[in-house]
C-alpha cells in the first residue's frame, strides 16, 4: 500500500492517462491527408490543445511538431517527479538517463560519420540544463578517445573505458551494446536501491521482459536478414533478461529464422505474438510492451504506475510520429494503422 502522496500521484497519473489518445482518435488521425490536418486534429485534442495552441498549422514543420510532443512528455515526467520531490532518486530520472544514452549514441554516430552538425540538429533542446552532461561541450569532440576523456568525471567513465578497450575494431554497434547495457544496469540498480522490494520486483520484471523481447527481435532479425552466426547473435544481445542462459544459447543456436520462431512459440510464449503479423515485428513488440504497461498501470504501486505511464506516453509519441511519417510518405490509412500500437 502506498502513502497518501503516492495515491495522489497515482490519481494524477490516471487522470493524465484518461486524456491520452484513444483508438478512435488514432482512427481519425490516420485518415488525415496532411501534416497540417494532423496538427489541427491534435490541436483540438484535450491533451495537446494547450501545447499546440500557438502553432500555425499551415507552416508547422514535421520535426518541430515531433520535438514538441517529445518535449511535452519529458516535461510531464519532470513535473511528476518534482511533484513527489523525487528529483534525487535515480529511478525517477529514468527518462533523462534514456535520453542521455540516446544522445551519447547519436554523438558517437556523428563522430564516426564525421557529420557533427547532424548531432546538433537532432539534439533535443529541452535536455539542455536537464542533464548532468555538457552536450554542447561534448559535441566539440572529434574522436571517441576525446569523448571518453571528456566523460571521465561522469557516470559514463566506465562504459567509455570499455569502448576504448575494444581498440582498433571499435564500431558503432559495439558502442551501442556497451552503452545500452550500462543504461539498463543503472536502471535495474536504481530499481533495487530506490524502491521498496515489492514495487521493485514488479518493475524489474517488466524491464527484464522488455529486454527479452528486444533481444528476441534483434536475434531474429540478425538471423532472418543477415543469416548471422551463433556468436554474432550472442554479441548483440543485452544481458539482464529473464530468459536464462540456457534458453538464450538455444535461441542463438537455431539454424534458421523459422526455427527461431518455433523455439520462441514453445519456450517463450509471451513473445509468440511477435510473429503473428509477418513484417510488423516492431509493432508487435510495441504491442506486447504496451500490454505489460497497461497491466502495470492498474496496480496500486506508484513507481509501477509512473513507469508504466512513461512507457505509454513514449508509445503514444511513437504512434504520432508513425502517423506523421506515414502521411509524409503517402501510405494508405490502413497501412499506417498497422504501424500503430494502441
Amino acid at each position, binding site marked *: 500500500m502506498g502513502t497518501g502522496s503516492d495515491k495522489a500521484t497515482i490519481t494524477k497519473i490516471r487522470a493524465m492517462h484518461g486524456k491520452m489518445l484513444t483508438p478512435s482518435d488514432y482512427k481519425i488521425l490516420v485518415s488525415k491527408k496532411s501534416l497540417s490536418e494532423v496538427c489541427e486534429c491534435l490541436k483540438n485534442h484535450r491533451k495537446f490543445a494547450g501545447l499546440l495552441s500557438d502553432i500555425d498549422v499551415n507552416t508547422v514543420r514535421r520535426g518541430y511538431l515531433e520535438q514538441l510532443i517529445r*518535449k511535452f512528455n519529458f516535461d510531464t515526467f519532470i513535473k511528476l517527479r518534482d511533484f513527489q520531490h523525487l528529483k534525487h532518486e535515480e529511478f525517477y530520472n529514468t527518462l533523462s538517463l534514456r535520453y542521455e544514452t540516446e544522445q551519447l549514441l547519436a554523438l558517437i554516430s556523428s563522430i564516426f560519420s564525421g557529420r557533427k552538425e547532424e548531432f546538433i540538429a537532432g539534439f533535443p533542446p529541452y535536455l539542455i540544463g536537464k542533464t548532468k552532461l555538457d552536450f554542447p561541450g561534448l559535441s566539440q569532440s572529434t574522436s571517441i578517445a576525446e569523448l571518453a576523456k571528456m566523460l571521465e568525471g561522469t557516470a559514463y567513465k566506465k562504459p567509455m573505458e570499455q569502448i576504448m578497450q575494444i581498440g582498433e575494431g571499435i564500431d558503432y554497434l559495439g558502442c551501442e551494446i556497451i552503452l545500452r547495457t550500462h543504461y539498463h544496469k543503472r536502471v535495474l540498480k536504481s530499481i533495487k536501491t530506490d524502491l521498496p522490494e515489492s514495487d521493485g520486483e514488479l518493475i524489474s520484471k517488466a524491464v527484464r521482459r522488455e529486454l527479452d523481447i528486444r533481444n528476441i527481435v534483434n536475434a531474429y532479425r540478425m538471423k532472418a536478414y543477415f543469416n548471422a552466426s551463433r556468436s554474432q547473435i550472442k554479441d548483440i544481445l543485452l544481458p539482464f533478461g529473464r530468459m536464462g542462459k540456457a534458453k538464450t544459447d538455444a535461441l542463438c543456436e537455431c539454424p534458421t529464422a523459422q526455427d527461431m520462431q518455433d523455439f520462441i512459440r514453445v519456450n517463450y510464449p509471451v513473445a509468440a505474438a511477435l510473429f503473428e503479423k509477418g513484417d510488423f515485428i516492431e509493432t508487435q513488440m510495441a504491442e506486447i510492451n504496451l500490454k505489460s504497461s497497461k497491466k502495470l498501470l492498474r496496480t496500486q504501486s506508484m513507481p509501477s504506475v509512473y513507469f508504466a505511464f512513461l512507457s505509454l506516453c513514449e508509445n503514444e509519441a511513437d504512434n504520432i510520429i508513425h502517423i506523421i511519417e506515414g502521411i509524409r510518405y503517402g501510405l494508405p490509412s490502413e497501412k499506417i494503422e498497422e504501424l500503430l500500437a494502441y
Partner: protein
Amino acid sequence: MGIEKMLLVNIDGSMSELDKALLRCCESGCFHIEPAVSKSADQRSGGLSMLSEKNPYTPLMREMSELCRRMGIETDKTINYSEQGFDTLSDFADYLQSLRDELGALINERQECYKEISEKGATAKQLHHLMGMNTDFEQVFNCKHAHIRLGKLPIDSYDKLEYYTETFFFVPFDKDKQFYWGMYFCTKKDKIIVDEIFSSLYFERIRIPESVHGTPEREYDELCDDVNRLSLRVEEINEALVRFSEERGDEIRRIYALLRFKNNTFDLRKNVASLNGRFFMKGFIPKSRKDSFKKMFSDVNSATLSFLPPNSEPDLKIPTKLKNGWFSRPYISLVEMYGVPVYNGINPTLFVAITYTLLFGIMFGDLGQGLVVLLAGLFMTHKLKNKYGALLTRCGFSSMAFGFVFGSLFGFEHALDPVYKAIGIGEKPIEIFDKTTFILISAVAIGVGIIAISMIMNIVTGFKQRDYEKAIFGCNGIAGFVFYGSVITAVLGMLTGKSFTNTAYVILLIVIPLVCIFCRVPFSIAVKYKKWQLSEDEGEGGIGNFIVENFFEMFEFLLSYVSNTLSFLRVGGFVLCHAGMMLVVMTIMEMFAGAAQPIIAVVGNLFVMAMEGMIVAIQIIRLEFYEVFSRFYDGDGIPFEPVGESLATDIE
C-alpha cells in the same frame, strides 16, 4: 379540436398549361402535393414518366441571393411575390444584368479592398515583430557580402545556437510564447550551410513583399495607414450600397421573392408525370376547400380535376391537418415535438393545452411571478412575434390564478390577506405548508383524472381505427380503464373507510379485465377474424411462450399503472418546492438591512422564476409525453404541407 377531413385530387391537363396549373395549386394554399407516380407503383404506371428537367431559375436565384447578401438586403422579409413585367426567365436575367451593371463595379472594388486589407494586415502583423531592426529593408536586402533571412525561430532552437561554431548571427527583435522573431545573417559564401542549420532548427522564414523598402517601423506605419485608408473606402462603398438598398431594396426584395417563387414552383415539377403531351399530378386538399379549389382552375382550360376519397390510393399516406381554436393553437408545437397524429387518429392539442396550463399554474402558483410570465408572453407575442409568447401568456394567467388561491405574491405569503378580507373569504384558501398532505393527494387525484381521460381517448382512437386490441382489450382500452377505475375506487373506499368491494366486484371489475388484458391478442383476433389464434403470426410460439410473454407484460402494465399515477406526485412536490424556495429568499432577505432587502427580493424572485419556471415547463412536458401520450398517441402521421403555404412561408 379535431383533424381536418381530406380529399385526394387528381389533376391532368395539357403540358402547355402545366405552369399555370402549378401556380394555381400554389396560390390555393391548400394543396399537399404527392408524387404522381409512387416508387412502388413504377411497374404499373402505364407509361407515365416523371418530369426531371433542370430548374433554369436556380442559377439566377443563387446569383441574386448572393448579390442581395453582398448588399445587405434581407431577402427573407419580402412580403409580396407579385410583380408586373416579370413573366419569363429572360425578364429575370435582364434585371439581374442591370443590377450587375449598376453594382458590380462597387462590389468588386470592395472585394479587392478586403483582399488588400487582409494581405497588408498580415504583413503588418509580421513587421510588428521586427520593429527592433531599425534598418531599411532595402539596405538589408541589398547587402553585397551578407546573406540575410528574416523569420521566427522556436525558443527551444534558440538555445541550441551556441552549439554551432559556424560564423553567423541571429538577432532577435521580439519574443512570444513559442518563437523568437528576428533575422540571421552570415557571409554569402556560408549561405548554404547556414540556411541548412537554421532549417534544421525549424526556422520559419518571413517573406517580405517587394513593396516594403524602409524600416519596419516606417513600413508598419505605412501599412497601417493603407489598411485604414482601405477600410475607409470600404465604409464609403458600404454606405453607397446601403443608399442603393434603401432606394431599391424593396423592389429587389419583391423581384427576388418572385424569382424564388418561380424557382420553387418549377421545382414542384419533379412531382409531376407526363404522357402524350399531358401532365398528371395528385395531392390532398381539405374537404372544406373543394369548391374554392375547383374554382381556381376555371381558367386552366385543359385541366380536369377528379376528387376521390383520401384512402383511394393505399400507397399514399394521408397528411394530417390539425384544427385548433385560439386557446389551444400555441400548444401545437408541443404536440408536434412528439409527432403529428395519424389522419384517422385524435388531435390531442386541446387536451394538452388544458392540462399543461392547469399543471403549470399549480406548480408555479404565484400571482406576482405569474404576472411577470404573462407580461413576458405578451411582449414576446406582440414585439418579438415569437410563437411561444402566446403559450407563456396562458401559463402566466394560470399561474396568477393559482397564485391567488395559494395567496402568494412574489413570495410574500400574506400580502394578499387584505384582499381576501375585502372579498369576504377572511384568509387565503390554501396555506401550502399546512396542507401538504392535501396538496399531494390532490396532485395524485389530478393524475388519476388525466390518466383516465387519456385511456378514454385511446378507446375512442381504437374504435376509429377499428383496432379492437387497442380499444377493448388493451391495458389502455376498456379493460384497462375498468381495471384502473375499479382499483382506484377500491383504494378510495379503503381510505375513507367505506369499503364496498365484494367477490362480485373483484371478479367482474378486476379479474375479468385482467384476463382480457392478458389475452388481448387472441381476443382481438377472435373479434376481428372470428377465429381463435394466440398471436397475429400463425405458428409463432406455443401456449408456454404465450403465458411467459404475457405474464411479464402484465407485470409491466400493473407496474406502470402505479408508477404513472405516483408520477403526478411531482405536481404537488413542485407546489411545495416553489413555496420552499421563496421562503428561503424571504429568510435571506430578512437577514439583511433594509436597503439590501428589495435587491434580494428582486434577485431571488428572478432566480426562482428562471430556474423553477424552466424546470416546471420541462417536467410538465415529461408528464404529457410519458404519462399521457404513451397511452393513446402514436405521432406517426405526416403533417399537411400545402405547397402554396410553404412557399409563402419561404418568401416571408
